């Protein structure tokens, strides 16, 4: 009998205890959400076409594809594949001698990567009340040039002006210098091959 009463009191005490504990416990936990639920667009795919001046071989048409990854608002990494076809040297034209290179050796290919820095971000005013976002970036990198039957290491330096047509589409004007050594004329020399290209790129 005594044990039975004790049990009743014990149950009552426990019930009261839990009810009281529920009353005083403050609800301080706040719901937290991660920013990762938002889609991120840090990749940029671009194509460009322009002119490449291959030292000693005149100027030729240039086509390139580029893939970039934006590390932050200042820096980006870019992989590039560019192609052109070299013309004839003045020597070949004037002497009437046999061509220095075969047709397939005139194919010029570059593949490499570079790091870019957005130096001057800002707005460009096209008319008095119409402004577009733009940015001037400088870049430096290196890669490989496949030209004249030879594969050589190449440095790439340049600048890119980017004009944002929409939030996801950018128009790009790129000046770049591909620096590499050639040994076509028996002696090795360092050549500067300047290019100028216009392209467009999409964020995804």
């Amino acid at each position, binding site marked *: 009998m005594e044990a039975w009463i004790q049990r009743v009191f014990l149950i009552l005490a426990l019930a009261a205890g839990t009810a009281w504990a529920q009353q005083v416990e403050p609800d301080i936990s706040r719901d*937290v959400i991660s920013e990762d639920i*938002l889609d991120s667009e840090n990749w940029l795919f671009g194509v460009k076409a322009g002119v490449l001046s291959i030292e000693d071989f005149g100027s030729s048409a240039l086509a390139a594809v580029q893939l970039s990854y934006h590390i932050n608002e200042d820096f980006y990494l870019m992989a590039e594949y560019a192609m052109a076809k070299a013309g004839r040297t003045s020597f070949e034209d004037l002497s009437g001698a046999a061509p220095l290179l075969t047709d397939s050796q005139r194919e010029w290919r570059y593949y*490499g990567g570079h790091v870019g820095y957005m130096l001057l971000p800002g707005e460009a005013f096209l008319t008095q009340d119409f402004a577009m976002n733009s940015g001037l970036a400088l870049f430096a990198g290196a890669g*490989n040039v496949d030209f004249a039957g030879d*594969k050589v290491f190449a440095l790439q330096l340049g600048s890119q002006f980017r004009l944002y047509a929409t939030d996801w589409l950018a128009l790009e004007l790129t000046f770049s210098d591909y620096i590499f050594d050639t040994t076509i004329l028996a002696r090795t020399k360092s050549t500067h091959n300047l290019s100028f290209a216009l392209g467009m790129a999409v964020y995804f």
Partner: protein
Amino acid sequence: MRYYLVLALALLSCSLFAAPVAVKVTGDFVNLHSGAGRGYPIVQVAIKGEALVLLKRRTDWVQVEFKQQHYWLARQDLNQLETTDKQQFAVSDERFAAFESRSWEMGLLFGDFNGSSLYQLSLSYVVNPYIQTELAVGQANGDQADNLSAELSMYLSPMPHWRISPYFGIGGGVLRTTARTVLVQTPDGNNSLASAEFGLRYYISRNFIARAGYRRSVIVTERNDNEEIDTWKLGFSVFF
């Protein structure tokens, strides 16, 4: 049947593309820029209690829709917002935890391969904080020969929790050598390669790592003596 297919596609696209998030300003105000960068001017301000829709992120910026217009909000300002379900954003600049729990790493390295310029692309899988495997493809163009190498390596990082973390490892692969001039008697061909590497990894910020390494490789040749070469490299990797 076609309806099921459409439904399945719709479900798939929902899971692939994150949906916009409706939020309300809880801080005093947030600045809205015209572009994703500090160089783009503040063109609008959303004050306390006003509603925004978060669309997507680009680097440290979030695109928002406010009064039927699109603007960009700095990532730090997510602290000033809460969702319609009263959820707050956890914004932390310290992504070190993400660095420690990374699983894939993609890198670009430049350096010196026995006197010629080298560049290398690598893809690594981080098994656990201490062990990672890497597949690296490198190209080095020297005065006498072009070398193309592909190596599979395994690295150990004894101190993965340090910001500057040393690593070492071993690897093996193939090296393809192509002679450049007729003057040098380097036979073209594929050789096996075994290497040991020591280096440092430095977590810079976000998902960006700097890496420097020294690798010593033994090229197994058909001649009586094996050739040994040194590689120095420096570069970056991005982790996912």
